[in-house]
């Protein structure tokens, strides 16, 4: 566990995007694009729909097609207390889930081992806590079909900077096709099909992986700052592995794609097809081997996200880019602006 330095300027609350671009009067592909050019050690400012100007024929964009679930699941304790369960790791018949208040500020609620909860008609038993991440409760489900439960009783996981619940559709990428993420793989959100088609027309390749995201926060600032790692499910197809191995430059759309491809990469950077759980942490100590460039949303420096970015960009340049983004009013988080590290 690495504690992240927190000497960055505080992010002004007004820069936390509270709703998607389309509800701010612009298209999803018209968000700002912060371009971090590592070779030139320069920071440029562009718009997402001009991404093609920064890419070349032979580049391969790799997207995560995981579809976000309404993973804030309404449940009730035997006492009648309403709670929200946020499954972070889902396995057949069991969840490792956060238990929080059903509305803002979504603070953690402690459960008791052995107690039973109800999700609709379904009974859930609290088996204990995870030893490595004690805020996650190990829950036993009596049903095999947890997807039906989530889709019937869930709402999108929301943080307090999003004041109103938004439809699940607001969180989906235009290519979302494999249901399973607890939170939106939001780096790909700014892509429109119009932009993707234009990029393909210019000779930029498009490949896809699946990585089902867990939770980005355990609703406890001090705990979150400690970077607790947990496993996530990923799938890399033979077609994608082949495309990645042949590409001149691999541009990962989101840190989830980095995690998936790097989990499937051999030590010399060849990607082999596979599907599995991964606990890989890409960072300065384990730099990327298969991925060359990255498109990512903007997240607070304290977030574990930042450690991964340091694997791509020297810290001084990253700090400069972040400072410029704040100065120029870039919006942050899942509905915010975007960055290209090239």
């Amino acid at each position, binding site marked *: 566990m690495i504690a992240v330095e927190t000497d960055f300027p505080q992010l002004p609350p007004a820069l936390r995007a509270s709703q998607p671009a389309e509800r701010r009067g612009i298209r999803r592909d018209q968000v700002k694009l912060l371009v971090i050019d590592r070779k030139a050690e320069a920071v440029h400012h562009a718009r997402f729909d001009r991404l093609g100007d920064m890419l070349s024929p032979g580049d391969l964009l790799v997207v995560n*097609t995981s579809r976000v679930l309404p993973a804030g699941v309404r449940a009730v304790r035997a006492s009648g207390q309403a709670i929200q369960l946020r499954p972070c790791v889902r396995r057949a018949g069991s969840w490792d889930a956060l238990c929080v208040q059903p509305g803002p500020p979504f603070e953690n609620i402690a459960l008791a081992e052995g107690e039973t909860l109800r999700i609709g008609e379904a009974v859930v038993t609290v088996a204990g806590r995870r030893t490595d991440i004690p805020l996650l409760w190990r829950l036993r489900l009596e049903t095999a079909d947890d997807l039906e439960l989530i*889709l*019937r009783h869930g709402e999108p996981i929301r943080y307090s900077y999003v004041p109103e619940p938004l439809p699940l*559709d607001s969180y989906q990428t235009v290519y979302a*096709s*494999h*249901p399973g993420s607890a939170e939106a793989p939001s780096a790909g959100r700014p892509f429109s*099909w119009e932009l993707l088609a234009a990029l393909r027309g210019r000779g930029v390749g498009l490949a*896809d992986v699946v990585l089902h995201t867990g939770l980005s926060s355990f609703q406890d600032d001090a705990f979150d700052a400690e970077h607790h790692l947990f496993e996530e499910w990923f799938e890399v197809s033979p077609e994608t592995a082949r495309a990645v191995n042949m590409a001149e430059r691999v541009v990962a759309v989101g840190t989830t794609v980095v995690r998936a491809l790097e989990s499937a990469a051999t030590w010399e950077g060849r990607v082999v097809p596979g599907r599995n759980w991964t606990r890989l942490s890409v960072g300065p100590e384990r730099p990327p081997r298969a991925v060359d460039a990255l498109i990512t949303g903007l997240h607070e420096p304290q977030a574990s996200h930042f450690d991964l970015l340091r694997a791509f960009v020297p810290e001084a340049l990253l700090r400069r880019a972040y400072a410029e983004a704040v100065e120029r009013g870039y919006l942050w988080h899942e509905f915010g602006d975007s960055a290209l590290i090239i």
Partner: protein
Amino acid sequence: MRSARCSPNHVRMNQLQGKIALITGASKGLGRAIALAFAREGAALALCARGEPALQAVASECRLLGVEVLAVPADIANPADRERLVSLTLARFGAVDVLVNNASTLGPTPLPLLVDTDPQAFEDVVRVNLTAPFLISRSLVGAMLLRGSGVVINVSSDAAVNGYPGWGGYSAAKAGLDGLTRVWAAELAGSGVTVVSVDPGDMDTEMHRAALPDDDPTALALPEYVAPAFVRLAAGGALPARLEARELLEQVAR
């Protein structure tokens, strides 16, 4: 000679082997006939309808034909139900090759004149017959584009092009669906994803009996007779944006 009452001989050709089809409004009428025809051709099916017992009955019939079936009781006018339908289908099958937007509603019967139409009833008809097919297509076309293949079949009606008294909301929504199909088709040309509107023609269905109780049902085609046209459409290939099932059936019979 084949009369309109007979259904054609069903020789299983496995024309849809390996394909995954999502059919809305699959519990009765044309939707049920399409489901069975697709099952005979080997397609795996995701079926939805509001009424669960009738839906489960059709699902069982299809399973007897040896195909995998997911039955999702859902009201396509409801956003949460739509997401559940799309996500459960994608989670089970990984993809959708053929989407049949078949579910539709007449609104209240006997059919009122437009001037007598309840505003909420009009909106409900548009939501089911036009908005929901758009939104379900939108949820699935992205994945189809990524794979570079897929077929979306919108079930239209001659009410989309003719003004029959009493068919106001239905007619307007179906005309809208045809318009939507033309734009989809223009935008997706060359992408490998095909979107078509098909007018199945008059059939002896519960909906037809509710709309036109005085029609002689024995003079109408059974939905089973029309369903092979949908098999032809689902198999893909270049197609015009709007066509009549009659034309396709002639091709199929040839």
